């Protein structure tokens, strides 16, 4: 398995708080890496650093060997990193088609015109929004907005997809659909970093897991092994004596 993403010694401070402290890991191609940990452990900050929304104070991020740390988010997006947001962010005044088109039109090999229209329909179909393209995205349900956000991310034709609690808040049947969709993406060769609290999804989907605590890696390994690690249990649930 070739290495797609290589992160080493990543540091990000907010004033006195060190949100990410010496984070290092790799993601292989077609791999799903779970990023888990208690609230405030730095998972979302890590995603923001990977996607360029934040600039690291120290450390190195390489995408297929190319250093990308500190590049602007749009450059990183054009290099093939797409993301969704913890609190869903669709473009409210645009309809669903235009939301997806926004992902197609500005990537490294942009699509526009008829080819783009076809791809928009295809992507909407794929996330289960077929035929809903002309609905204003602000009027979609929460779940459909999540689907739309994923379609927009996929429109970038990314090599690496960052999903920030994309499965949170889905009902059991939606969750099954969502897990199936993510698995099909991996089969197509996409690498995924998954920040998630839904443990079933982590067990089913992830090849490996990184448990973060206080900004650095607490444990790393296969989901089942990691989740039964006493240190990890301690970090999540606290000291049993307390």
């Amino acid at each position, binding site marked *: 398995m070739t290495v797609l993403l290589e992160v080493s010694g990543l540091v990000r401070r907010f004033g006195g708080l060190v949100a990410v402290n010496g984070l290092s890991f790799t993601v292989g191609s077609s791999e799903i890496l779970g990023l888990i940990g208690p609230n405030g452990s730095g998972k979302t900050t890590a995603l923001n650093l990977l*996607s*360029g*929304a934040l600039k690291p104070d120290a450390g190195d991020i390489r995408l297929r060997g190319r250093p990308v740390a500190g590049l*602007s*988010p*749009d450059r990183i*997006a*054009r290099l093939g990193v*797409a*993301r969704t*947001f913890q609190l869903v*962010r669709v*473009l*409210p*005044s*645009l309809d669903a088609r*235009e939301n997806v*088109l*926004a*992902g197609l*039109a*500005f*990537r*490294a090999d*942009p699509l*526009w015109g008829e080819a783009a229209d076809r791809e928009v329909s295809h992507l909407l179909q794929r996330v289960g929004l077929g035929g809903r393209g002309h609905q204003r995205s602000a009027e979609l349900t929460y779940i459909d907005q999540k689907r739309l956000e994923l379609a*927009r991310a996929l429109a*970038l034709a990314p090599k690496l997809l960052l999903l920030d609690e994309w499965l949170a808040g889905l009902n059991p049947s939606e969750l099954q659909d969502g897990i199936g969709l993510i698995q099909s993406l991996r089969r197509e060769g996409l690498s995924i970093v998954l920040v998630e609290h839904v443990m079933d999804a982590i067990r089913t989907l992830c090849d490996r897991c990184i448990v973060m605590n206080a900004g650095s890696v607490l444990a790393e390994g296969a989901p089942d092994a990691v989740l039964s690690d006493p240190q990890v249990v301690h970090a999540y649930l606290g000291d049993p004596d307390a």
Partner: protein
Amino acid sequence: MKGVPLALVVAAMGALALVPFLGTGYHLALAIGILNNLVLATAWALFSGPTRYVSLATAAFFGIGSYAAAGLGEALPWPVLLAVALVLGAAMALVVGLSTLRLSGIYFVIFTFGLSELIRQLVTWWEVNVSRSVGRYIFLDVTQEGIFWQLFGLAALVFLVGWLIGRSRLGLALRVVGDDELVARHCGINVTGAKLLLFAVSAAFMTLAGAIMAPRWTYLDPSIAFNPVISFQALIMALLGGAGRLWGPLLGVVPLTLLFEVLGANFPNAFSILLGLVFMAIVYAVPNGIAGWFEGAWPRAVRLLPQKAVR
């Protein structure tokens, strides 16, 4: 609904085009005023509408165009001069934009206002100390009708360019940026680049308007060319009409130009007071502009039917 804006623009431009043939000299002067304001307000909204940066630099670009015409008008053939003015305005917009588009809302407003005042002060100082006279006389061989048709062409060009931008990837980029700048960046949009390009296009039109209008005053001084009222009028007209749409400012320009004409003619002393009151009335009563009000009312009336049918 889709055809309404186009019909509106075509009708307005068509009506204006008749003025030189049917109207008197006074009507022609009024039509020139409308066209000038139309170019300035539409160009202003071209940038400020989608980006929501409130620019008060209209007077700066307009004044630069006027002074380019006054200073170089006799040395250069007119088309070359217009090209020079265009390049000057766009180049200055790029420099200003590069250094200021990082600034958040309020600072940008104040910066652009300060910039216009700074340029005015510097030009005044230059004229007094180097040219040895505050004002200049402009003797260019351009008739009122010549000015009218140039402005008419420029206004048509603003609409054409605005329409093309709206259909282009740049247009989509701006709508995405207007909705959510962070998402725009994560879609691969070079946000700063898009804003900069638009600022330069908008400034180029303002500069051209200044150059074309310059021969209209036979006497030009910095307080005319860089008059801050130019910035305010463009702003208020675009806001009244609706800055979010290409055809919005038109709805503000025509009534306000006529209103200011009437007020200026009948109450020259109270003009400033009335201008201020009109301004405040617009801010309080029509915050989304006439176009916004119109578009809001229209779908509310029509929407109920098809949506019920779908469900």
